C-alpha cells in the first residue's frame, strides 16, 4: 500500500486535532513526526495482518479486496493494532501463571515488573510505534526491527517457546546447568536457555541419554574424538538434525522451537569446541 503524502496529511491533521483537543492549531515538528509515524505504523500493521491473514474481520477482508483510501487503511490498521494488543495481553496472561525464572533476576524483572508497564502506558492512538519499555532479558531472536506492540508480541512468543523448552527438564537440573555456565547466573543478563541447550548438545555429542546427568571422562573423550575426526560443518549439520528430531519428539510446537533455537546451535557448538581446546569441558558440564 503506497499512499502519497497528500493522502496521509489529513489523517495526521485529524490526529493532531485530537491530540490538542482542538485547543491548538499548531504542533511542534517532533510531535507532527510522531503522529505521522503513528499513522504509518497502523497502515503497516494492516499490511502485516493482510499478509498473515490475522486480526481482520470479514468486512475488513472484503474491504481490502478493493483499493482502499489511506483513511480507510489507517482505520482498519488501527483496529488491527487494538486486536494485537489484546492478543499480546492474553499471551502475557497465559504465560504468567506458569512462568519459571529459574532464579534469574533479569527474566523475572523483565516479565513481572517491566512488561505490565507497557500495557499500562501503551498509547494506541498517538504513539503505537513507541515500545515504551526496555526489554533487558535477551531472547535468542533479533527483535530489534520491531517496535511498539509488535516487539512485545515477538518477545512474549520467544518467552513462551523458551518456557516450553525448559519445562521438559527438572528445575534443579536447569539451575545446575546455569550455575555451571555462569556462577553468577542469578544476576546475569544472558539468555537462560543457552546453558541448557549446551547441555542437550553435549548429551547428543556424547550419545548419552538425558537421564544420565553427569559427564564422565569417557564422555569427554568421545566428544573430543568426534571434533578431531569430523569437520565442524558436518558436526553442526548432524547436531542440528538431532536437535530437530529431539524437538519434534518431545514438544508440541517442535518446529517452532527448532526454528527459534537453531540460530544458537552454532554458538553453542563453538563454546563446546573452545572448552575442549582449553580442556575445561569438565568445568562447564
Amino acid at each position: 500500500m503506497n499512499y502519497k503524502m497528500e493522502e496521509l496529511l489529513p489523517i495526521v491533521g485529524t490526529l493532531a486535532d485530537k491530540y490538542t483537543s482542538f485547543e491548538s492549531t499548531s504542533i511542534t515538528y517532533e510531535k507532527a513526526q510522531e503522529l505521522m509515524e503513528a499513522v504509518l505504523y497502523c497502515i503497516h500493521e494492516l499490511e502485516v495482518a493482510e499478509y498473515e491473514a490475522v486480526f481482520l474481520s470479514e468486512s475488513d477482508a472484503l474491504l481490502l479486496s478493493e483499493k482502499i483510501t489511506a483513511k480507510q487503511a489507517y482505520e482498519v490498521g488501527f483496529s488491527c493494532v487494538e486486536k494485537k494488543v489484546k492478543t499480546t495481553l492474553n499471551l502475557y496472561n497465559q504465560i504468567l501463571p506458569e512462568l519459571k525464572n529459574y532464579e534469574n533476576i533479569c527474566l523475572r524483572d523483565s516479565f513481572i515488573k517491566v512488561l505490565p508497564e507497557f500495557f499500562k502506558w501503551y498509547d494506541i492512538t498517538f504513539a503505537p510505534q513507541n515500545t515504551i519499555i526496555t526489554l533487558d532479558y535477551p531472547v535468542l531472536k533479533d527483535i530489534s526491527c520491531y517496535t511498539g506492540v509488535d516487539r512485545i508480541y515477538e518477545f512474549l512468543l520467544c518467552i513462551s517457546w523458551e518456557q516450553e523448552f525448559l519445562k521438559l527438564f527438572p528445575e534443579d537440573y536447569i539451575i545446575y546447568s546455569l550455575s555451571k555456565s555462569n556462577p553468577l547466573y542469578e544476576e546475569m543478563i544472558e539468555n537462560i536457555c543457552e546453558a541448557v541447550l549446551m547441555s542437550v548438545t553435549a548429551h547428543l555429542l556424547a550419545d548419552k541419554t538425558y537421564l544420565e546427568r553427569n559427564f564422565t571422562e569417557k564422555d569427554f573423550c568421545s566428544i573430543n574424538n568426534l571434533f578431531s575426526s569430523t569437520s565442524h560443518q558436518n558436526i553442526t549439520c548432524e547436531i542440528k538434525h538431532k536437535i530437530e528430531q529431539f524437538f519434534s519428539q518431545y514438544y508440541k510446537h517442535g518446529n517452532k522451537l527448532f526454528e527459534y533455537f537453531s540460530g544458537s546451535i552454532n554458538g553453542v557448538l563453538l563454546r563446546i569446541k573452545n572448552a575442549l581446546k582449553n580442556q575445561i569441558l569438565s568445568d562447564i558440564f
Partner: protein
Amino acid sequence: MDNNWIVLLQQQTYLAEIMETNQKTARFGLVLSRQDAEIILEERNHALQQQRRVEFGLGITPKIIYEFMDSDFIDQNNYTNTIIQLTEIFYLYKNEMQDEISDDELLHFMKEQFETRCFGDLEYLEGTCLNIFSQAVRAGYRGYQSSQGYGEYGRFDEVQRWDYELYQEALKELL
C-alpha cells in the same frame, strides 16, 4: 523519515480565509489587500519554520486578526506589520510555554497585556510580559486554565504600576 512532508504542509495557504476576515475587521477600519494577505502568509510560514512548528487547517492567523481587530493601538497603517509580529511572537511563546497553554488562553493573555500594559508596544509584550509569564508556566503555573488567560499578569508583574493613591501622592509632591 525526512521532513519533506512538513515542508509540503507549510506550503498550504489559506489566502481566501484570510481575505474573508476583512468582512469583520472593516468596521474597525482595518482591511487587508490581497498583497497584504500574501505577505502575512509568507511571514507565517517563515515563523513556523523558524520555530519548528506545523499548522494543520486554517491556522492561527484568522484567530489573531479577530482577537486584535478592536485594539486601540492598531490602525490601517500598522495593521499588516502588527499581525505579522504578533504571529511570530505567538509561535515563539507556544514553544516557550512548551505547548502547555491553549491558543485561546495565550491570545487572551497577549491581547490583554497589549492593551493595558504594553499600550501597543510589541517589544514590551514579547520581552517582558510574555517572558515573565512563560517562566511561570514552565515552572508549573496553571492558573490561566480557569481564567482563560485573563487577569493573569498582575500576579507576576515586577513593575510597580500607577494606582490612584500613588498618582495623588506624586501630584501633591509636584504641586
